[in-house]
């Protein structure tokens, strides 16, 4: 069994003191070179779990480790790439400007969107000079995925990665994610249903319901 690059240990979360628990004692391990899915309906806590794993939220109880580090530790952040269900791109900037900006934040030297293989594989080249606000949901999604991959993270956290993509986009993204895993990366993806993540096979699946992980990992 490969070592876990991401480990979620007994994580509990609620947003307000008197509010309900969104996550209740979640335990999860993401081994290296593995794709893992977390499926669950609306409000099951998938996005909250991803935000905690990305270091964007603090758990109320429990710990998360990325390569043994707290994900909020600046040393852990270059190891993580995150795509949320909302876009992290700036509407007013072009796709190329957005990618160059994030490359600078992550310290990627001499980044050129025109020679980024992910840009080419996702067919984004022709949209590089378009403002993010002018892109359709699917193309913006592709740009967001490129942004998350440009610093070559070891862990990819993907919130409903195939939502909004056409069949061509689904195939292209599945190929990129497969190559990410085959190069030693890991990914944790969420979706409402297992079928939504079928292009990512083979996967281990956790089912999240009412803030609780219900099933042991198993292949689909």
């Amino acid at each position, binding site marked *: 069994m490969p070592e876990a690059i991401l480990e979620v240990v007994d994580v509990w979360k609620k947003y307000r003191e008197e509010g309900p628990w969104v996550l209740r004692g979640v335990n999860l391990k993401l081994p290296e070179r593995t794709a893992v899915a977390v499926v669950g309906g609306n409000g099951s806590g998938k996005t909250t779990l991803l935000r905690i794993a990305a270091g964007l939220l603090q758990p109320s109880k429990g710990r998360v480790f990325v390569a043994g580090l707290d994900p*909020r530790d600046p040393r852990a952040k270059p190891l*993580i790439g995150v795509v949320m269900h909302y876009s992290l791109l*700036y509407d007013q900037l072009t796709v190329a400007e957005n990618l160059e900006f*994030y490359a600078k934040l*992550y310290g990627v030297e001499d980044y050129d969107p025109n020679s980024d293989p992910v840009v080419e594989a996702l067919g984004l080249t022709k949209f590089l000079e378009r403002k993010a606000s002018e892109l359709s949901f699917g193309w913006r999604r592709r740009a967001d995925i490129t942004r998350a991959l440009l610093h070559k993270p070891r862990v990819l956290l993907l919130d409903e990665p195939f939502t909004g993509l056409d069949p061509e986009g689904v195939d292209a993204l599945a190929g990129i994610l497969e190559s990410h895993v085959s190069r030693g990366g890991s990914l944790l993806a969420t979706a409402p249903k297992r079928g939504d993540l079928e292009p990512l096979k083979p996967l281990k699946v956790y089912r999240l319901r009412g803030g609780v992980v219900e099933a042991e990992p198993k292949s689909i």
Partner: protein
Amino acid sequence: MKLSPRASSQLLAILEKDFRVEFREKTNLWVQLGFTIAVSIASAMAASYSTRPGDVGAATLGLYALFLSVFTGYSAFLREAYGGTLDGLRASPTERWVIFLAKSLLALAFILPQILVFTLVLKLFSGGLEVSWLPLLTWAGATSVFLAALTAFVSASLSYGEARAGPLLLLVLVLSLPYLKSSLAHLSDILNGVAPEAAGLLTDWLMAAGFSAIAIYLSEFILE
């Protein structure tokens, strides 16, 4: 907290990005500039009826600086929080205080020129004002630094609250009152042609620098 070459490069990247975003929303910029000039002309007309026009000018400029702080606060963090892009900054290996410093500098770049435009127009249209430019620039610098740090601080604090923009005005007002109370007295002197005490202006600078340093330190916890 050390401004390493990496941190400097991230700081510059955020500033460059923010300026691009701001300058692509030209309508906002023109509306803001137009409003600054309009308020300043109205203020100059009111000042021309007063025996102490500097008092009127100082009062309106103080009020306008508060308005500017609230407006700039929206650009600093709240817009990023609403748009979701703040998560992109926070997920990146950029230290929280670097993000905060970049937003404070952006706020400074908008507040300082507008305070100067306001004063220039006020002088042009009021007729009776005897402005000493060196003390005025010293005052404007200190006040802009204070308000920029304040607006970034309040905006960052509210970024994860549910009410967000609602309490912005109130918080800016409450936190800025102690500073403005002493600082506007110095401005009033300057606009009335009375040389302010150097110690007074130095106090303004010390308060502004002190508040900025505390705000930068606290940003490590606010943006957690």
